[in-house]
């Protein structure tokens, strides 16, 4: 019962011969070696496995890899520059101490990336509600909310600057 599956992850295409019962998170981690995405509960509650599928944050433990052929999948490995330079969201997490053990972090980052792409001007309460999608056992969540809030402001400021610049 092996099936050929073609996946596009972080812009790269992969052809895999796998059992169809393999979940997306297991395929990402163990067939593609993208171990940045973590497994926390395998029933869709903790969100450690959150990745983007066509831009939307989803639970990679509740999807079979075979289901997402043709979709654009993005994982935490896509965020930092190839030389390791962290992106603005990652930088905000570090500055606000939005991570301790780091296990929930990739899921939190992808959740936030997906959310901010759709809602560039969220209120703190909206951010808090989205952060409630995932579990963190270390931080008490406050600094995660602050990090995302800060990142959203910085992105808005940068966008505004760009607009102002283009007017000149």
């Amino acid at each position, binding site marked *: 019962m092996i099936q050929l599956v073609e996946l596009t992850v972080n812009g790269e295409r992969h052809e895999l011969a796998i059992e169809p019962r393999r979940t997306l998170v297991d395929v990402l981690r163990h067939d593609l070696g993208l171990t940045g995405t973590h497994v926390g509960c395998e029933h869709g509650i903790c969100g450690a496995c959150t990745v983007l599928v066509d831009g939307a944050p989803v639970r990679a433990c509740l999807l079979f890899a075979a289901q997402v052929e043709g979709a654009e999948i993005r994982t935490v490995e896509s965020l930092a520059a190839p030389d390791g330079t*962290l992106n603005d969201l990652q930088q905000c997490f570090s500055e606000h101490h939005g991570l301790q053990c780091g296990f929930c972090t990739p899921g939190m980052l992808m959740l936030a990336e997906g959310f901010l792409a759709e809602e560039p001007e969220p209120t703190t309460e909206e951010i808090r509600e989205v952060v409630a999608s995932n579990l963190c056992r270390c931080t008490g969540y406050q600094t995660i909310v602050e990090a995302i809030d800060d990142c959203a402001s910085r992105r808005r400021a940068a966008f505004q600057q760009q607009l102002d610049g283009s007017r000149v």
Partner: protein
Amino acid sequence: MVEPHFRRDGAWVGASVPRREDPRLLAGRGRFVDDITLPGMLHAQFVRSTEAHAELLAVDLDEVRTVPGVVAAYTADDLDLGDITALLDRPPHEFVPTAMPVLARGKVRYVGEPIAIVVAKDPYAAEDGVEAAVVEYAPLQPVVSDTAALAEGAPLVHAEAPRNTLVDVSLFATEGIDDVFAEAHTVVEVRTKTGRQNALPLETRGVVADWDDRDEQLRVQTCSQVPHQVRTVLAKCVGLDEKQVRVTVPDMGGGFGQKCVVGREEIAAAAVALRLRRPVKWIEDRRDALTAAFLAREQRYVVRAAFSADGEILGLDADVVCDMGAYSCYPFTAGIEPLMASAEMPGVYRVPAYRVRGRAVTTNKAPTAPYRGVSRPQYVMVVERVFEKAARALGMDAVELRRRNLITVFPYKGVNNITYDPGSYLESLDLCEKTLRDEGWFSRRDDENGGDRVIGIGFACFSERTGYGSGAFAQRKMQVVPGFDISEITMDLNGTVSVTTGTLSHGQSHETTMAQIVADRLGIAYDRVKIVQGDTDRITYGWGSFASRSITIGGSAVAAASVKLGDQLREIAAHLLAGDPEAAVLEDGGVRVGDRWMSFADIADVAYLKAHLLPKDVGPGLSAIASFDVGGDGTFSNATHGCVVELDPGTGGVEILRYVCVEDCGVAIHPQVVEGQARGGIAQGIAGALFEEVRYDDGGQPLAPSFMEYKVPTAMEIPDVRIEHLETPCAFTENGAKGAGEGGTIGAPAAVLNAVNDALRHTGVELDDTPIPRESIFRALEVAR
């Protein structure tokens, strides 16, 4: 915010510098145990008991071995491993030793107990294999509560433990205490039952083990807070020398105590790797983590307290029963919770008379391990309830009553034979109350109550012993005494250093904070310090991280080793620069002798590559080793928590409107990390007070096998926390630091419970059990309406 390069001596400790751990963890480039893949690796899963209490009649694995992908399957008899046994040096009437077999033999004692191990080519096939096992049980009556365990004629979980009692100690009984109570103006009593909890690291437990023929070693990469203890137990169980076992720990997704004991599964998986000479990985799935991992905190208290008419506490009389589940954990034993509660209960108050009996009972539930705070969240909650009840009985303000009884003169020798080093007990209470008052919460509560809003304010005052040295643990009569820490420091040719620590960060930022300590001692930047942890081959012996010991003991050892290396550097530099070693100072990444300066790299060049230039009595190389142990009774961090809740009369729901924490952990090495520890700890304390409970049905079946039932709070339930720092430096740790890992968890249940009860004040109902049932709140408010 942070200067990236050079800082002068003394500048690093106290600065919230960027964490060394962050870049890899944020980029998804950490290495957790499940990220490790070895060639030819097999995947293990366990056949687990479906019965809470039963004779094991037969375990048939024939079908298992025919499942596609399954490579092997073993029972206890097949593997023939030694048991895991933890001991106390106490007489038989105080402690009954029991063995925990790696795989169940003859009997199962809880649902989820491992019976057989299945290894397969992938985790899916391993689970297919587990399903094919046939286990025949002869069910016995399960013992599913502490009261059932202690009942006359109760079935025995362990034949050797009469009345299912593993530990029964009466550590203190002040002479004449009965008279104190008989003559007291007011006596109050608190009866509390606290729910069983799961420490719940987001990363479940796991291990990768393989036999290496070249090193002749069983290499075990495991998710453990205590790698050396895993080595010791594993070596014994499989019959290897300690040097034939190497335990390393990769990045860890939290532990909180659940991983500071030796797990049966990691031993079994390693034993199979040894037998098959193939790498074996075991990753605990969440269902097993919720039902079969080490749990904690299910305790029952009956506490009476005597007060004088003017509110002076005169005596405390406590009976504590801890439901430790099916087995004693290694190395702490089932005594961990009752001994902690018994030893520490008088806490921050001047209690002149104290009597306590602490018991650990065994039941047919998953066994327990230490969990962040160990009994302190519970007894602090009980004692803080005592003060609330006494205040009501005496017609006094509860905060004022606390003030009257707090220890204010230090060092203070307690009725529990503990000497408390200086802290800010009174100051933290004053500041916490003032903060909430200034923010307007008291007037809001008083103005708005009576309408639809039901607001309450609660406090918790406590101190926690951090940095238990050998002496403190020896007092508990542990046979394994985890006190000291050893650190070894080496400088390389570039003048950068690597430092070992026997402690083990699993989220606490030691790669950063330990480096800050070293950087200050040597006058180099903290990013020129590499911390080496979690490797039994590279670290002489270590006790890992638990009990808020890392910075107090591990940090002190690291500091001491740094000082020794600094002396070496000064001596060599003075020789090379023809100056006086006494006048040599570490400065700017080198040594200054008078008006001349020599970089560490140049000194290292001599120490390694031109040893003939060294002083006569100085050997080649640059390294030093030092150890540290906290003498006496350890050092006490302290805090006051204040919590404001609003209750919803229509649903019984609880919302936390405000949370203030005034904490004192002495010198904070990295204030942002300290705050993170406090906030995360408070979240876990709130979880215990309001949300999380591992429940069982009457047959011993766990009722919370998923996150649907085990309700870990999210960002919607956990409030922002305002943190205020006080600083009472410790006089006998190398940095003046006290532990900061557990305090948040310790204070929160009491603060939340007191706040809820304050909000219920007009109803006459008092709720003393956790997690607080919303139905009880609903009913209390309904009657009042």
